[in-house]
């Protein structure tokens, strides 16, 4: 899908305009001062398939996240946001470009090195929680330590502490099937935090939850980000979820379409709408509000 020239021009203007809006809103963000980037992506490409069947999922994406930053990634379906998250999370390999996570270049790493990177430096939270059904909540939290063969008393205490922190201290012995969706997601967040990863990746963490449970999960992510200084990247469809981030990056057709500072749901909705409405095949109008912004 190639964006018509006109639309591209429109977007450039939009980015500028939104930046203005955000400045005007003087959103106070308590993000730490920028240091070495926690994630640096440059000229990232991902192409699925080959020949005539080739589909470009990511098309020269540049993105930099500073340490301790909370970034939300939004975009219409098929915009490449999940692919970006998977590549940053060392779950998929890029077709071109560079990715650096916690100061380590991912390109050139062996499959084994990527696995160890995931294990020791990255935490994952999924839309469908992905807890092991046969393990209790506390065992699910301990899973990364089991995998790393670093299960000791201190880790157990930390796991217990994390469960308490996500409000499930009393339900440690329950199986996933005995927990609600929100509770399961909170277990999976505790699991992601166990090894104190520098980077926490969340793929639609609220996508499968009602608004109250979703709110709790988002609140938790924000807290962990703020209190423990974890860099968080969250892919979401939901502007109000995205707004919790320090920064919202928009993808469209595999490219960065722009970004707005977090904090204000309306500005996110506004920008998102500009991505969605010009294309007739994208029918979802987020939050029920279609915002018409035409250049003068």
């Amino acid at each position, binding site marked *: 899908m190639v964006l018509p020239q006109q639309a591209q021009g429109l977007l450039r203007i939009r980015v500028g305009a939104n930046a203005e809006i955000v400045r005007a809103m003087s959103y106070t963000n308590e993000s730490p001062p920028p240091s070495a980037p926690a994630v640096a992506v440059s000229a990232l490409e991902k192409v699925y398939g080959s020949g005539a069947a080739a589909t470009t999922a990511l098309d020269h994406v540049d993105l930099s996240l500073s340490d301790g930053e909370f970034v939300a990634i939004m975009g219409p379906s098929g915009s490449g946001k999940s692919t970006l998250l998977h590549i940053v999370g060392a779950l998929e390999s890029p077709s071109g470009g560079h990715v650096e996570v916690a100061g380590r270049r991912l390109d050139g790493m062996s499959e084994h090195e990527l696995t160890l990177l995931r294990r020791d430096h990255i935490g*994952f939270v999924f839309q469908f929680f992905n807890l*092991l059904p046969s393990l209790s909540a506390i065992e699910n939290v301990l899973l990364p330590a*089991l*995998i790393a063969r670093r299960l000791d008393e201190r880790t157990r205490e930390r796991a217990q502490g994390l469960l308490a922190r996500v409000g499930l201290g009393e339900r440690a012995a329950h199986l996933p099937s005995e927990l609600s969706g929100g509770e399961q997601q909170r277990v999976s967040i505790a699991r992601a935090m166990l090894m104190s990863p520098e980077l926490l990746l969340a793929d639609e963490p609220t996508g499968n939850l009602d608004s109250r449970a979703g709110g709790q999960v988002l609140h938790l992510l924000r807290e962990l980000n703020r209190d423990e200084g974890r860099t968080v990247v969250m892919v979401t469809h939901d502007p109000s979820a995205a707004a919790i981030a320090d920064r919202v990056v928009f993808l469209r057709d595999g490219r960065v379409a722009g970004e707005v500072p977090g904090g204000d749901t309306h500005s996110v909705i506004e920008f998102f709408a500009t991505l969605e409405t010009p294309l007739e095949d994208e029918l979802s109008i987020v939050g029920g509000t279609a915002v018409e912004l035409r250049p003068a």
Partner: protein
Amino acid sequence: MIASFNGVALRGMRTHKLRSVLTGLGVVLGVGMVFAVLVLVGTIHQTFTQLIDSAYGTRSLIVSPRGGGTVSRQALATIRSTPGVKSTGQSIGGSFIRLDGRGRPIHGSAGIMWMAGFNSGESPYDFQMLSGRPMRSGPEVVLEKNWAREHHLRVGDVVRAAASPTGTVSLHVVGIFGLSSGLGFGGQGLAGLPLPYARHVMNQPHGWMDVSITTTSKDESTVESVRRRLQRELGNGVRVQSPSGLEDQATSQLKALNIVLYFFSGVALFVGGFLILNSFNMTVLQRIREIGTLRTLGATRRMIVGSVLLEAVLVGAAGTVLGLGLGFVLAHGLVAAMRGLGMPVSGVSIGASSAIVAVVLGLTVTVAGALRPARRAGRLEPIRAVLGDAGARERPDWRRAAIGLALFAPGCIFGGRFWMGGGSGGSTLSAMLGIGMTLALFAGIVLAAPFLIMPVLRLLAAPLRRISPTGGRLAFDSASGNPLRTAATAAALTIGLSVFVVNSVFSASFLGTVRDQVDRSFARDFTVQSIGGGVETGEAFQLAPSVADEIGRLPGARVVSSLRTRLVELPGTHGASNGLAIGIEPRTFGAVDKSEYSGASARAALAGVARGGAILGAALASADDLHVGSTITLRGAAGTVRAPVVALLHSVTLGTGLTVELSQATQEAIYGPMNDTQVFVKAQPGQAKALEARTQALLERRYPNLEMLSSVDLKHHIQHQMDQQFGLFNAIIFVAVLVSLLGVINTLAMSVLERTRDIGVLRALGSSRWLVRSSLLDESLLITLAGAIVGVAAGLVIGVAWIAGLGDLIPGISFRFPLGATLLVAAVAVILGSLAAVLPARRAARIDVIRALTYE
């Protein structure tokens, strides 16, 4: 609380008990099958070695005639005067048929008594008197204790028996003896008679059946030097060997049976291994999201492979232990079946080696079966796995079909030849090669299965969809949506059925061929032979010399021609002593037998035999590379004769082709004198019925141990023997088919588990329980029917090819298709296979919709 990563796999197994049990079942059945067959082989082997061991005990050497005949008086004198020989024991032997209280013969192995005649104190065997006293003279008999107990005979009783050559005797039981091993004689009677009386009733005025020697020193080198010296001095007519040599000889005779049994256990293991592979494929498929999650969290490929293999080892170990138990039960069943068929078998012998082999094979096959799925699991892209969209819909590619064909073809063309080759004196290597090829052939079927089964499935789906539009449609979509899973489910049944069809094609073709040949070549009206006797038992059951004369004098008799059959070692057969030297009366034989010969007309061939020539069975000719015009050198206890080959016989009516027909005079010159073993009778026109009645009356009056068989009876007799042989194989195959059916249940159940979520969606969308259930039943019907059709077709292809390749090994054999048996077994398999889906279908229909939708 889980303490290590491996604990995760263990917990998974505990949570998914059904999955673990179904996987383990494959191991249990595979190991059980193999263990049972190994135990059976061991038991058969032990029957012979222990018998020989306990019969000869401490004796150092045994002298026996090479290929029938007797050890002469001069030979005995030579043995006794040979330095190093301390003492000898010698006996003559013959078989008697025991009579019941009313003087009627007892049929089957329970009626057969093997009698040894010897002077007490000169027994060649390690008999130990347990009660009573040794026999002294006249009609006195000592009995083996197991047989005596089984037939409630004690010292003081009288045993009535019909002696093969001379008629009915009443024997006084004076003692009970035991063999030093305490073993019986395979359900048959073993008894000792005083030598002079035995010589009289057995009509063996001179010579010995065997001579056992105690040497002055037990030292191995002394014994060996005495053995060499004796062999040199006694010549080639006799065989001088140690008891262990006799065991080796017995063992080599069992080789053919063992090879077939090993072959079937190989098939069983293959089916079991295939089941295991399938189960682990399913397990991995089910665990895909879990594996993805673990990979995402940083579990390495090696850890994933390790955890799947750990599961395999645990399931394998548990399955193996249970499999040993099952095998133990099966082995007892098979041994009982063999006894029931009248084969001599001792008590079940469980060697440590059988257990070790079964355990090692069980674990190896389980781990090997899990290896591929495990490696596949390790190689999964974590994110695809986590999203649950990996590997679910693999399409078979054509390379697979090509490899399948490449594996199938050589086994189909040569496999039968090789492993049948082991049966008629071929080498073990070629038999093993045949087994290897055959297993490759089945592997080929498995690989090609998706390409064979799916088209059949599509054909079958059309009528099914007409009968049951919605359920049938869902069933077909489900079965065709995942061709690899469907093919894997059906392939187990395909293999089981194809083995059955091949076996039945073989037995039907043998039997059909024999019947045809009997119809074509039998010009006799009936045959008289001993109960328990026949062509294939050789000299064991001999007739009184008067039988042929007396029948010949009956009014209405036109031609009486006798046959004297000996089991001998023929040249070119690698020491196998299952060759038959058949002494005929060439002048009359043509009137009772219309066999066609190649290389000469029947008249010329028989004239040649009268002049000292030999007619060779086709298998012997091809084994020793002989043809009409060449000379065959035959060695026996009485002498060596170089006989010109005058014709070849392409028929199995006189044994499986390892035969040489000679005149009775030539036969005697080689192997020594003997009595008739069969008498062929032709009546005058219109007198057949009357002559039969007169003969029957004669036999009842004078020779109760003999029976009269019409051609129809004889065909039944042959059929009975075939049934015995193939019955054992069928019993084993039946277990294999059962294993494959359980495989179908297994994979269906697993496929229901795998599709729990889909079923939840169906139910959520408003499908009734009935629809879910019926679509699963339809699916299993489709899969088992397709599997059965392909199995029968594959079995037919292999059967046709193998029979065609056997032409020169089994003369005149032609292809027959046992339509009835095949349809029956296929129908039973399909019905059982479809019923197999009932449990999984019920389970599927009962699935809680909400749970199913969130099933992991």
